[in-house]
């Protein structure tokens, strides 16, 4: 049973990284330089995105991204000039969409035959406003070209 749970967690983590690589490569012209087990504590000063999903299973997806990476990804996504500084509103909109895409891309890989409905992404800069649920989540930390990101997914007990 323990091995089975560990296998499921490993597959989940791998699918999460593969989904992130696809999304970052194709839509943000970015890449993953390194991946590692997710840290129990949140990234300092990170922007957080939270997406809930329900349907054939239910749970939540959580993304943290530091300001440098968020700014660079926003510029790439919007096609801004290299030296242009995106507004806070633009950054929040793009990282929200990034969280939404990562959650959807992950679920499409991990549960190919299932149907899910995703909530609108909630973007927060105050760590106290978004639950991290680090203890019972599967996650990975990713080093990108311009900064760091961490991803976590947690399934509700009834869904697993």
């Amino acid at each position: 049973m323990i091995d089975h749970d560990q296998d499921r967690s490993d597959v989940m983590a791998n699918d999460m990284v593969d989904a992130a690589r696809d999304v970052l490569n194709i839509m943000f012209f970015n890449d993953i330089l390194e991946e590692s087990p997710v840290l129990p504590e949140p990234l300092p000063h990170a922007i957080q995105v939270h997406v809930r999903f329900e349907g054939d299973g239910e749970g939540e997806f959580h993304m943290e991204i530091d300001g440098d990476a968020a700014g660079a990804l926003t510029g790439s996504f919007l096609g801004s000039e290299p030296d242009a500084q995106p507004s806070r509103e633009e950054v929040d909109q793009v990282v929200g969409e990034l969280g939404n895409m990562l959650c959807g891309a992950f679920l499409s890989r991990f549960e190919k035959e299932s149907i899910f409905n995703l909530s609108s992404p909630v973007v927060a800069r105050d760590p106290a406003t978004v639950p991290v649920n680090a203890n019972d989540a599967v996650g990975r930390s990713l080093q990108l070209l311009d900064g760091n990101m961490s991803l976590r997914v947690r399934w509700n007990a009834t869904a697993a």
Partner: protein
Amino acid sequence: MNSLRILIVDDSPAMRAYVRRTVQLASLPVKNVFEAANGQEALALVEKENRDPKKLDLIFCDLNMPVMNGEEFVTKLKSTDRDSQIPILIISTDATQRRVMRLRELGAQGYISKPCQPEMIRLKVHQILGETAPAAV
């Protein structure tokens, strides 16, 4: 291909901007781009803008949206006499086979899963509008 009048339906302003830019990068002959943040807004916009001689040529639509989601929008649009002929191209992260099948049954003409490249959008648009895609510029 004639100049296109298109509608982009997505609750994310960033994604609407991305689709708008991608359509331009794909060298599609776009004349007018309209935007709506959910299915309800889109229905109102279709009611207003899809009139002779200025018909809408194509609708890009997300699935997960507040107020009225993509499935509800497709269902309602396809149940109307006047506007049911407008082709709908779904762009969503939800790429499961069951979802795609369901959307086809509802009447959506095409489906692109995010992440998506401009070339994929260009090919799908030509496919849906029934013309052979010219070589990418």
